[in-house]
């Protein structure tokens, strides 16, 4: 296969157990170059184990993983040069300053005179003021930014972020995503795991979901959000002037009275909104207010997790 069309990440039949616990079960998928891919799953689903396998931090029981076409075992040096990983744990070396940490990290990849790029990363992550501060003195959010900077210091074409915004304030989160989106637009492939599903929904073009170490779904975010087109109307009507009107829930299908004069109506497509409102008016109810509620990624995630089979560990 031509190098240019090789996927950024290719995971083939990967399994990994820790004692009797099967953390990852025969997972296969690939991530094309330039994609912003989301890997979701509840705690203990195997996301971090899979990421650690990609990064070479744990040894596979079965299967193979390639990063930009390089096997993570047989060609580990090339694979690691192509990969930047932001670990989930907030880890740091207490002996060094931020700049020293980044300079050493560059050196591990054989890069010297990397100051310009280090300055760019520091500026992009709002760390410039802390460049010469010891890592021990930084707040949790600042340490998280340094972890991101360390992963980017060798300009890897593939970036894996394992819950990078856990415990991070809103400002940093916004800032971080702007920076990562910019890198993605420049051609970097990004793989993200997060528990903030709204982040995955807005950033990722494709999403894979793991449950008990098994890949239960992989689909584009757009398709995922449209696979179930149900929506709801939350309708508030004015107090009827007449007492002989039939209750809405007894006339309209899939309608539930949630409060006095407030109804929740389930529709199977947004095209049904107009006709439903017409029906309400024809029943001589006067509409006071209306809200529509569409299914978001969280609903899809919960329904997929509920639907997929349970496995014993």
């Amino acid at each position: 296969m031509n190098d240019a069309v090789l996927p950024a990440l290719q995971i083939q039949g990967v399994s990994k157990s820790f004692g009797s616990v099967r953390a990852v079960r025969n997972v296969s998928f690939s991530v094309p170059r330039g994609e912003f891919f989301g890997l979701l799953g509840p705690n203990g689903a195997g996301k971090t184990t899979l990421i650690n396998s990609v990064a070479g931090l744990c040894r596979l029981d079965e299967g193979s993983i390639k990063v930009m076409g390089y096997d993570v075992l047989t060609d580990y040096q090339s694979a690691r040069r192509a990969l930047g990983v932001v670990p989930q744990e907030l880890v740091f070396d207490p002996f060094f300053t931020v700049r020293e940490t980044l300079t050493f990290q560059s050196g591990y990849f054989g890069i010297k005179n990397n100051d310009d790029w280090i300055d760019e990363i520091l500026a992009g992550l709002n760390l410039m003021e802390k460049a010469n501060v010891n890592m021990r003195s930084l707040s949790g959010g600042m340490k998280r930014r340094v972890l991101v900077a360390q992963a980017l210091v060798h300009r890897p074409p593939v970036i894996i972020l394992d819950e990078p915004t856990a415990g991070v304030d809103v400002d940093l989160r916004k800032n971080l995503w702007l920076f990562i989106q910019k890198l993605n637009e420049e051609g970097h492939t990004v793989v993200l795991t997060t528990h903030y599903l709204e982040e995955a929904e807005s950033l990722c073009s494709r999403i894979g979901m793991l449950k008990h170490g098994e890949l239960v779904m992989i689909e584009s975010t757009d398709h995922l959000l449209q696979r179930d087109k149900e929506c709801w109307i939350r309708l508030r009507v004015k107090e009827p002037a007449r007492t002989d009107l039939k209750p809405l829930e007894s006339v309209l299908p899939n309608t539930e009275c949630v409060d006095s004069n407030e109804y929740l109506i389930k529709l199977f497509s947004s095209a049904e909104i107009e006709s439903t409102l017409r029906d309400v008016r024809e029943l001589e109810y006067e509409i006071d207010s209306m809200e529509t509620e569409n299914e978001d990624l969280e609903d899809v995630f919960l329904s997929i997790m509920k639907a997929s089979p349970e496995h014993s560990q």
Partner: protein
Amino acid sequence: MSGFSTLFLKESLRFWKVGFQTIGAPVLTALLYLLIFSHALKNRISVYPDMEIDYLTFLVPGLAMMSLLQNAFANTSSSLAQSKMMGNIVFILLTPISHQALFAAYISAACVRGLLVALGVVIASMFFVNVPISNIFLILFFGICGGVILASLGLIAGIWAEKFDHIAAFQNFAILPMTFLSGVFYSVESLPPFWQMISHINPFFYLIDGFRAGFFGRPDAPIEVSICVVSMVSIFLSLGCFSLIRSGYKLRG
């Protein structure tokens, strides 16, 4: 910078930044040993009577080597164990640094610390006694081999340890007794035959004896035997340690 030189520099800076604790304190400890043992034992222990070397002078190379060994071990074991326990070892494991470079960088930095401490002990002792130097090459050979052996043992301990207690146990129940029973404070020739034989099983004895021979030109064991034993132990432990790193034992899950 290559991966090796970066990791070597980082490991060296790591101890240099806390030099008071990693270099100054061991030198001071060695000087206290020198002071106390020389005053307590100078009239009770006879060393090399044919060479007119007083006990204070005799102690200096042994104390320098003992400090070298302990600090080379401490450097690798504490660095690796701390990185593992704090989790920052991932910053090295995620990089393309080869197993050889990783091994060599840790060992070299530990040797540098050990040699600096030994040099500090010798220089500080020169304010009190006149320490002769008979063969600088022997001093360097046994100094470097001692550093490599103990740094390798430190790496093995660091890889194996799951908590700092494990490192302390390795240090207190293996390294310290072997060092103290190797002739740091006495000439093995002064021991009864049985204890002389026991001492000759201890590889640390050959390290101290060869190192001391570099100062006084008078070894207790034939110098060729010491060179041979020390070289073999260095190679054996280096290979063992390198194999552990390559296998990823307790480093990669």
